[in-house]
């Protein structure tokens, strides 16, 4: 009884400390767990992999700093996959504060590929292989409007260059010229892409979402409104596994598991304590 009473009044800072240790220790020891890839992530991978070489993939950056640890590894993996398949990438975003993360991710992957390139043909160039259109306001109206003409919203790109000065953008006018949309979501924008670009224009969509958003995306997956779903850091780790390029997603799986075990232990202990104390009081 006393044990449970003490447990019930434990200082929350001790719980924080235990949680921090559960996360830090596996990071420092660089522990790795085998990762099993789930069907929604396999489908997302297959959607990009199944496109013919040189297809146009639009990537929407709909997250910012508060969710970057979960979604940024997805961006890196998706970009690596797209460029490995010689796809062209059109980046844009619905979250104005997220675009720098898109730019950082793109620069990281492009530098990585260009450093390893054996010839100019293997290298990735801005305007030819990828563009960053940046952010424009409008949200739903923008998603509907892009189905008519990109230039109505994006006369210039992220760097203020006219879009028609970019060879990649010249033949792209609306969703008919986009083969797949990869929406990286930390909020409502994923639903909006599915409702306005997917349902109205038939745009093929893959969603990468934070753990908070992912459960609300499964019904779209079930109804085949999206081609694949990468959910949370776990989804990012699974995609890294498929790409055979481990990153922060994979590195985060052991701390994640340890933290979950700790939380499970707290939940079980808390409930046992609650019932024991209730019985004693009765």
């Amino acid at each position, binding site marked *: 009884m006393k044990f449970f009473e003490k447990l019930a009044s434990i200082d929350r800072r001790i719980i924080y400390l235990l949680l921090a240790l559960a996360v830090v220790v596996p990071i*420092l020891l660089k522990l790795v767990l085998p990762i099993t890839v789930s069907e929604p992530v396999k489908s997302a991978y297959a959607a990009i992999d199944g496109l013919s070489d040189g297809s146009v993939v639009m990537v929407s950056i709909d997250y910012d700093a508060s*969710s970057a640890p979960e979604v940024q590894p997805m961006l890196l993996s998706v970009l690596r996959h797209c460029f490995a398949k010689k796809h062209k990438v059109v980046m844009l975003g619905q979250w104005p504060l997220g675009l720098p993360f898109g730019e950082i991710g793109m620069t990281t992957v492009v530098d990585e590929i260009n450093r390893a390139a054996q010839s100019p043909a293997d290298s990735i160039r801005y305007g030819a292989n990828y563009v960053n259109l940046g952010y424009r306001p409008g949200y739903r*109206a923008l998603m509907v409007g892009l189905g008519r003409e990109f230039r109505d919203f994006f006369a210039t790109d992220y760097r203020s260059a006219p879009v028609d000065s970019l060879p990649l953008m010249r033949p792209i006018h609306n969703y008919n010229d986009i083969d797949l949309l990869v929406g990286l979501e930390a909020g409502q924008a994923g*639903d909006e892409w599915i409702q*306005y670009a997917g349902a109205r224009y038939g745009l093929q969509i893959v969603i990468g979402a934070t753990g908070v958003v992912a459960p609300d995306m499964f019904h779209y997956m079930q109804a085949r409104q999206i081609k694949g779903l990468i*959910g949370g850091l776990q989804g990012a780790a699974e995609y890294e596994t498929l790409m055979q390029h481990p990153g922060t997603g994979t590195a985060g799986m052991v701390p*994640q598991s340890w933290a979950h075990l700790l*939380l499970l232990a707290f939940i079980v202990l808390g409930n046992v304590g609650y019932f024991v104390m209730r019985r004693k009081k009765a």
Partner: protein
Amino acid sequence: MMHIIGTWIAAGLTLAIFSFLYKDNPFYKFAEHLYVGVSAAFAILYTWAFDVWPMLVEPMFYGRGAASAADRWILLVPMLFGLLMLSRWFPKIGWLSRWAIALTVGIAAGLGITGQIQGILLPQVAGTLVPLTSLDNVLMVVGVISTLVYFYFSIAQKGAVKVGSRLGMIFIMVAFGASFGYTVMARISLLIGRLYFLAYDWLHLVR
């Protein structure tokens, strides 16, 4: 050099925010206010650079992206509505902002209705009409029907309706549990991201 300075600033601010877990303190308050201020400044900059400048100033005054004179002058309409929105700062003419708000609400409602019907209701109903040939499909159909029964308030919850309603509540609870589980995972992921940054980018403890 700039990268090192940036990393140290980011690490310092991360620790300042984490210090709130011990108790409220001036370091936390400083980091909090700095974050709010920088975010607001960033948002203003982005609104100007990616909204007002390319979608209003450039096409109207420099003709960029405007195919004809009509394309330029039509922009006077949204500009006027935008200015009306600012009238809220002046109590005597504040009522003018309602026109701009009415326009925004009207557009949002129009788009919302079509989006909900075309993008959610019809595809989701179609997605539920599946052959009951697998356990997954049976569970899904039973879950949808019993959840709908739970939210059906026009008849008394007795007999079969009560059983269906209870079953619906179980499905709803399972959905909440799954959602909460994912949320826990998401929050832990953010903690991992920050601690990984401190160990990897700042202290170089992990190679």
